[in-house]
């Protein structure tokens, strides 16, 4: 039962002044949704050329692409769940040597762009790379080695960079539920593992699923990593249609199918979760399970291994490359790349998180059933931007903002006989909104799963004491949501800094960021030259993590 539907029928609910909140939230939703809807409008263009391309896709490679995509989704889904949940559990409920460090260190792979990881992996593992060369040296020319461009390799690489989404969300859920629930299970005579799978996991399910959904949406949107492996997916087909066949309409049509698929999955998950609700009891400060002996060693070794493979090794390789070129690459302009990147990251993270908070909150304000359904749909659509390949969304954004620009210019001309130039496209304002469109899902997931754990009685108490919606949000929700909000801020911050396609096309003239710099190097195949901006990007990604540690509350991330 949704707490706010209860409220809607109560007298307290009716006197609750929520209209301004709704208006603002709907405005935000509209801004975020329009660029996504623009993609769907491309179905208006189905001429002879488009039909021929669709026919061609059916005849040649659509089945292979779909199979590849499904294999990738299952593989990455499995990989991130396994890594994310196990690491989150170890680092939140157990104690073992090094846990304090792993707690935050295991988030770091988030800062490594997927295509960088893919490039480093392929460079090390392919025929010409050090691993296979060494093997041939020891065992002769015909030594067997698995295909480094096959689905297995792509799944490993994407799982390694994407598991932090599951890790971060699952961890905040595990921290919130503590070991209490597990103890309850043990008292009821269940084994440790039974209690884990039957109790701890289901209770953390909304958070875990939200993390997996983020990882899978990013998998679907990924173009950089899969194209380094030349592994064809639905997304590469979108680019083929656009860049190869010069048909943006078919590209957008394919992209919209991708979105429908994602929306369907999200709805199914929601239905599967059905009415189950798990409410947070304050349960901090309970002693974690102290692991000893072999178990402690195994836990430390596991965390160390993942940290090495997912972060330390690729980072070390990047640092090596960066040192080779630091002298010629580094110049005073580099500082401006750095500040641009930081500034955009901070502003976009704040904006997107505030937007997400408002959207999640307005869902909880009283409203009629019909209104509620529309709200649900609008919120769903507004989070879809994350599953769109970046360049496709960038086009949606460009189209909607140029339309707005044109409207403003002609309005100024007709109403005030002013002659102005278009000013939205290529402005920072539009760029920040573009980031919000792209990363709404990333901010929404942790905020929403935080909301879901809040005990509705607390809120009802606040309302019955006469608090306004603004005050309830400020003084009750926000403090309770702190962990979720921090998670949202960090992930959006890091994601915005890594973002490339929208930044490239929307940035103001001459406003370069580190990601733009990386693109400029890699576009000509000079991966090594991109090492310095990559390393800098990763170091910047450490800042929020360090701030959290210094504020002394790593347990609440």
């Amino acid at each position, binding site marked *: 039962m949704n707490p706010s539907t209860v409220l809607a029928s109560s007298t307290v609910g009716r006197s609750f002044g929520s209209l301004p909140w709704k208006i603002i939230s709907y405005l935000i939703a509209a801004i975020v949704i329009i660029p996504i809807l623009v993609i769907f409008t491309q179905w208006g263009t189905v001429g002879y050329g488009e039909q021929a391309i669709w026919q061609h896709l059916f005849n*040649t490679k659509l089945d292979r692409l779909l199979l590849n995509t499904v294999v990738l989704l299952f593989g990455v889904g499995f990989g991130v769940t396994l890594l994310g949940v196990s690491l989150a559990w170890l680092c939140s409920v157990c104690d073992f040597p090094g846990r304090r460090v792993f707690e935050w260190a295991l988030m770091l792979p988030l800062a490594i762009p997927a295509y960088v990881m893919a490039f480093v992996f392929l460079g090390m593992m392919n025929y010409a790379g050090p691993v296979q060369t060494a093997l041939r040296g020891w065992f002769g020319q015909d030594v067997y080695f698995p295909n480094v461009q096959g689905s297995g390799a792509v799944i490993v690489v994407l799982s390694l960079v994407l598991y932090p989404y599951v890790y971060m969300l699952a961890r905040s859920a595990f921290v919130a539920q503590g070991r209490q629930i597990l103890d309850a299970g043990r008292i009821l005579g269940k084994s440790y593992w039974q209690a884990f799978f039957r109790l701890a996991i289901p209770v953390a399910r909304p958070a875990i699923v939200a993390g997996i959904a983020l990882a899978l949406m990013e998998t679907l949107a990924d173009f950089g990593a899969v194209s380094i492996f030349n592994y064809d997916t639905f997304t590469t087909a979108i680019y083929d249609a656009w860049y190869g066949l*010069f048909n943006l309409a078919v590209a957008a049509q394919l992209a919209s199918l991708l979105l429908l698929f994602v929306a369907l999955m999200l709805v199914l998950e929601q239905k599967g979760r059905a009415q189950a609700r798990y409410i947070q009891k304050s349960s901090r400060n309970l002693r974690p399970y102290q692991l000893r002996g072999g178990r402690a060693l195994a836990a430390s070794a596991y965390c160390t291994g993942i940290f090495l493979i997912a972060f330390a090794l690729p980072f070390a390789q990047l640092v090596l490359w960066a040192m080779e070129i630091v002298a010629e690459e580094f110049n005073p302009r580099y500082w401006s790349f750095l500040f641009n990147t930081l500034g955009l990251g901070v502003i976009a993270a704040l904006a997107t998180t*505030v937007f997400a908070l408002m959207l999640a909150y307005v869902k909880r304000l009283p409203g009629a059933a019909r209104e509620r359904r529309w709200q649900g749909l609008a919120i769903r659509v507004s989070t879809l931007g994350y599953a769109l390949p970046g360049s496709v969304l960038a*086009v949606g954004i460009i189209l909607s903002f140029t339309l707005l620009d044109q409207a403003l210019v002609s309005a100024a001309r007709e109403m005030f006989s002013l002659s102005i*130039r278009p000013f939205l496209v290529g402005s*920072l*304002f539009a760029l920040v909104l573009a980031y919000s469109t792209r990363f709404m899902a990333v901010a929404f997931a942790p905020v929403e799963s935080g909301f879901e754990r809040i005990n509705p009685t607390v809120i009802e108490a606040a309302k019955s004491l006469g608090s306004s919606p603004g005050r309830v949000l400020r003084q009750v929700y*926000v403090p309770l949501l702190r962990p979720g909000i921090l998670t949202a801020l960090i992930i959006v911050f890091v994601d915005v800094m890594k973002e490339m396609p929208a930044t490239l096309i929307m940035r103001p*003239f*001459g406003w370069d960021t580190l990601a733009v710099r990386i693109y400029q190097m890699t576009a000509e195949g000079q991966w090594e030259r991109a090492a310095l901006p990559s390393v800098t990007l990763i170091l910047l990604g450490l800042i929020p993590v360090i701030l959290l540690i210094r504020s002394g509350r790593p347990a609440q991330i």
Partner: protein
Amino acid sequence: MIRYYVFFILSLILLQACSQDSPADAQQNNAGDQDSPRISPADAAITSPVIVYSSRQEHLIKPMFDRFTEETGIEVQYQTGEEGPLIARLQAEGEMTFADMLYTVDAGYLWTAADRGLLAPLESEVLQNNIPAHLRDPQGRWFGLSVRARTIVYARDRVEPSELSSYEALTEPRWQGRLCLRTSKEVYNMSLVATMIERHGEAAAQDIVEGWVANLAAPVFSSDNLVLEAIAAGQCDVGLVNSYYLGRKIAEDPEYPVALFWANQDSSGTHVNISGAGVTRHAQNPQGARRLIEWLSTQEPQEMFSELNLEYPANPEVMPTAIVRDWGSFNQDQINVEAAGRRQAEAVMLMDRADYR
């Protein structure tokens, strides 16, 4: 919380105010700078900056634009990005666009931009003299400025140059399990196959592509660099790459075990693609853009193309840089590069059918 909103909105406005170096502002700045002594009489009319949308990367264009500004006093602003979104933006902006000039690294994109009416024809004697006919649009909407040759490379120790002749001959059984290729998603391969369709017809071109696929030693790679490294490591013996990728390897290591062979010298000539530019249809400063393109076709910038990225000058009067000169001169395929754009979609579909991934 309200405080935070206010802070946030204020900071946005501030950032906007500080950073928006909008072209309109720049125009005013430049207008105030009119009595700059550098401007020669011929350029006196061009006072506003030229704004370029470029898919060619900053480190390859900025040195040239800086020289241009030094010489003519005309400022150049540029927005770099991927071809697809840049062209989509140009199209969406319509007559309100900022761009005066579009610069891309492949004839196909220039052809598409021209095909959608985004580029204006340019009557220029300078360009007609400096740029050979097969490297520019027959209707004068875009002009090749540098030439990128895609040709055969081979392992020095395992292949005799006498065994090699043409792209077509790489389908022979003797190359079974010895050929490495880059993915068909790379535009360079699309344009190579497109010109083959233009020359041999679709059926014959498909036979050739299928022959290549049958000879592959490994799954196709995602970059020319990986192809070169695979040949150097012994995974395969021959491959197709753009010459400047090999040039970079040789610049790092003069003993690099891979060498270059000019394909099809006894027949059609080696396949070339271009980087090139055109003036946008709705340019605010078409004269400035025209000046820039014309200037880029002259001696000094043409040499810079070759030095900066080891490409070939489009202007046949200009000598390429040293590493490139070592490979000797070669005959270029004389089919107009426009065919690469016109037939690109056909080529992509053909490669799909041939299972060239």
